């Protein structure tokens, strides 16, 4: 297996009406690695995920997925290259059953060699395949988002706040799930506000502020870094 990064972004910039939401972000993700993406509200975390996953076109910069240039690709093109994401506010197909939700992705993505029910089981939704997605609570809907993403067989997975809104007793299971996905050879970029969860899941973190990466390194170092502390605590 080659050692090139699963995801490499360089100089990624995106402006909305002249205002930069992302200003030249660089980031590398390797297989088997979980990187936490931190930053205060409005720092550009979700925008970054939207640009990487093709929802927005970058104003400048480059995105490479598994060694292929994917800059400006449409979402479905990125899915074929092996990238997928979940949404901060979950977006399942509400009028479809859980099994159908996963089935659509299985048919159109890169087949991961698992069945609908196996993927649902993996995401903690086993036995619910015949329910309509709109009947799920928000934490289940987030896991369904994840299940749909996994059904396309991604090598790179962008997870936007899986734990937010989850009950305390669900967090350990979610953390274990994400670590397992990485251990199976995927590269994960995880946006999260719950620090305990970040500590449990990630190998290292990147901190965004005002659209720029101001720190990259371990979570321990981050908590000592004056710029990071300033951003989070204003101390």
């Amino acid at each position, binding site marked *: 297996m080659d050692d090139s990064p699963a995801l490499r972004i360089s100089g990624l910039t995106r402006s909305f009406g002249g205002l930069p939401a992302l200003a030249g972000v660089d980031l590398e993700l390797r297989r088997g690695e979980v990187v936490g993406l931190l930053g205060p509200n409005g720092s550009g975390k979700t925008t970054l995920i939207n640009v990487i996953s093709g929802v927005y076109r970058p104003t400048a910069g480059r995105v490479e997925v598994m060694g292929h240039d994917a800059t400006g690709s449409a979402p479905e093109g990125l899915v074929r290259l092996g990238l997928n994401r979940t949404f901060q506010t979950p977006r399942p197909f509400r009028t479809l059953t859980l099994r159908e939700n996963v089935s659509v992705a299985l*048919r*159109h*993505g890169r087949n991961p060699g698992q069945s609908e029910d196996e993927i649902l089981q993996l995401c903690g939704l086993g036995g619910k395949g015949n329910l309509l997605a709109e009947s799920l609570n928000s934490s289940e809907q987030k896991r369904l988002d994840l299940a749909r993403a996994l059904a396309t067989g991604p090598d790179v997975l962008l997870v936007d706040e899986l734990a937010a809104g989850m009950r305390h007793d669900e967090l350990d299971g979610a953390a274990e799930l994400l670590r397992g996905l990485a251990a199976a050879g995927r590269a994960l970029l995880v946006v999260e506000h719950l620090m305990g969860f970040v500590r449990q899941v990630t190998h290292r973190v990147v901190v965004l502020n005002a659209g720029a990466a101001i720190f990259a390194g371990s979570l321990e170092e981050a908590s000592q870094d004056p710029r990071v502390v300033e951003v989070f605590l204003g101390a």
Partner: protein
Amino acid sequence: MAQRPRRQLVSDALMVVLPPAGFFAASFFYNNQLLLLTMMVYVALAQGLNVIFGFTGYLPFGYVGFFGAGAYGTALSVHFLHVPILVAVLLGGVAGLLVAALLSPLLRLTGAYFAIASLAAAEALYYLVSNPQLTAVTNGPYGVNLASVYNSGAAFDAAVILVGIAMLCVVWVRRSHFGMSLRAIRADPLSARMAGVNVVRARTIAWLISASLAGLAGAIYAWAISVFYPEAVFDLSISVFAIVFALFGGVGTVLGPLLGAIVLYGVYNYIGVSQPQEFQLIYGVLIVLIVLFLPNGLLSIRLRRLRRGR
């Protein structure tokens, strides 16, 4: 588990076969063949509208444009290509398909924009066809005469087959993975893209199927009545009927538009409304009432009761 798909298959087959068989049988008991034929044409139109509106949420007010294109496609094929009438009817379907392909950029629009743009397209097509400068081609505002190929019995049989085709299309869309993708797109287009679905392609396919059905319906209708003016086959009320029938029965279902067309068109003829404006008034009121009180159509009443019963 193995039993269910087979039962499903049988019921699907029945839904494709029974409606045309019913119409065919009805022709032996009921002597107003033109009424039955028109009803079948509306079944096809309502189901065609169902394919695009019921499964993608795109509502084409100008759906009649494909109907008119089918009628004129057939007429032009007869007059200029001198092909056999059945080929001409098929070419009418192709005409609907081609117009839809030409208009497929409209699918980039959403909601009201799409609905009204499609209406404008149908009107533009009408003014194009009826333009006196094109008299040499379309005979302009003076209409079309297909008396040379008139054959009411054969046209009736063609309409029976058309109903079967329309039912087949909807059953297929409802059951297939393609249909599942369409429902997924409707639920959330961005998520569908994230599931790897080519949203533009899927919508375009539904659009083309829908337009081809309308084109065939227009072709067979033109064949059956044989003499018509452009106003008759580009009449906006044809769109209105298709929309009302589909909505009344319930869009996104297999049987709803079929029932809607049979019930409403049947009741209309039974009551014997003689003035078109009374017809228009009743259907207008019906649209308002459906939107206000029965937004998911007639079939939803049954579904609601089932759900409550469980």
